[in-house]
């Protein structure tokens, strides 16, 4: 058996030209189909990725909706507006007539005062605008001391902040006094001058002292993960908690993470995360709250004392 014979035998296996052409065409068809499949695959991957992202987004929104009252309120506001069209017109009218803003309310009143619409004999001074200064009488009341046309006297306007339906409330003039200037000056010394920041706090923060003092016997605490373990607090501990919550810093911004620890006083809930950032939820309104480190450790110990996990 020679090598030539073996080679010759293998040569018999060679494909003919039509077979070669046929295979080449098949390869080209397969490659074209592959390219189409690749496009389909890319589209499918994109679709799957998009669907996954959408599911994740919906999941996140669902979690946020379940976990965050603030987010829940925002969604409700977006989907179910608080006001009917009639109410919106009424609110707009309020703004146009100066029924809501304290400055508008005051200036509208002074305009009317000078037109003697209240049967008054004197007028307030108006030189390049009215001359007045604002002082805070209490949480919901401002006093405006206005120069008037009678020398040695001034007019004190009493203004009060009232709740109005679902708005932040409205300012109203509830009365006025004509006082001698020395008496008015003495009054001013006992009051805190008005500032925008302070006023914002007055109008937007909860009246925590009233809320806490009135409910010392009805404070409960719990961990949101153990809602079955809601514990009532004894009177002495209530005082401690009241003092801490009264003293801690509040703001209009809510920061922090998972608000897991809850102290509930009647309808007001104080919710915190583990580092002392938290939120006050009172009748559906929300404010931020921050507990300092030393107070946080007291609250933490109380939680542990009442067998609530922290």
């Amino acid at each position, binding site marked *: *058996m020679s*090598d030539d*014979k*073996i*080679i*010759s*035998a*293998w*040569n*018999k*296996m*060679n*494909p003919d030209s039509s*077979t*070669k052409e*046929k*295979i*080449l065409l*098949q*390869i080209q068809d*397969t*490659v074209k189909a*592959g390219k189409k499949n690749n496009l389909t695959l890319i589209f499918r991957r994109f679709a799957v990725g998009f669907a996954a992202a959408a599911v994740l987004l919906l999941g996140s929104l669902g979690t946020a909706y379940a976990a965050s009252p603030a987010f829940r309120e925002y969604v409700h506001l977006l989907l179910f507006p608080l006001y009917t069209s009639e109410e919106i017109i009424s609110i707009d009218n309020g703004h146009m007539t100066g029924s809501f803003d304290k400055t508008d309310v005051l200036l509208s009143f002074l305009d009317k005062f000078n037109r003697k619409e209240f049967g008054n004999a004197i007028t307030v001074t108006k030189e390049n605008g009215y001359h007045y200064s604002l002082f805070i009488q209490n949480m919901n009341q401002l006093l405006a001391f206005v120069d008037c046309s009678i020398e040695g006297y001034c007019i004190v306007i009493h203004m009060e902040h009232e709740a109005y339906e679902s708005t932040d409330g409205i300012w109203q003039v509830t009365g006025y006094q004509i006082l001698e200037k020395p008496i008015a000056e003495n009054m001013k010394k006992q009051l805190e001058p008005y500032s925008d920041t302070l006023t914002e706090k007055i109008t937007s923060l909860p009246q925590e002292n009233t809320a806490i003092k009135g409910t010392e016997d009805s404070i409960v605490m719990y961990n949101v993960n153990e809602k079955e373990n809601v514990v009532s607090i004894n009177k002495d501990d209530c005082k401690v908690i009241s003092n801490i919550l009264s003293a801690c810093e509040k703001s209009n911004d809510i920061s922090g993470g998972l608000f897991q620890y809850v102290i509930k006083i009647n309808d007001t809930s104080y919710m915190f995360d583990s580092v002392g950032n938290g939120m006050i939820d009172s009748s559906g309104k929300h404010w931020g709250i921050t507990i300092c480190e030393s107070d946080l450790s007291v609250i933490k110990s109380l939680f542990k004392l009442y067998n609530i996990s922290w």
Partner: protein
Amino acid sequence: MSYSDREFISTYNRYIDMIYRLCFSILKNREDTEDAVQSVFIRYLKYGKKFENERHEKAWFIVTSSNICKDMLRQSWRHNIRIETYDFIPHTENPADSDIYMAILDSPYKYKAVVYLYYYEGYKTHEIAEMLHKPSSTIRNHLTEARRHLKKILDGGNS
């Protein structure tokens, strides 16, 4: 790396005979051989790396072809193909040539690959060993056994 149509057709023409021969010797029927050859070239197009030289490219085609054929043979329904069912038996003037052809087809895979690479492609035993990832001594043994096997078949089992 992608190949232009011209490059691919050039490569195709250079190796189609070799790949077809090798695949046919293993698969022993035309349809499967065509499928295997097609798979080899598709794999080449997807390979995407540059070959060091033509020798490297040729070796890649040989190894890939034999691997693809082995994969196809692993499918159970192909195992027991009898020689009588071969659909590509050439008619030759000299019956002895036809006998060698049949003997090669009927050899075990390990023999025919070695025989083909040694006799037809002219590779040395150490090169075949490197290509098939086997020791040179094994390749030499396979060659000796393949010769003996072919001789035995050609002699009608009389030797």
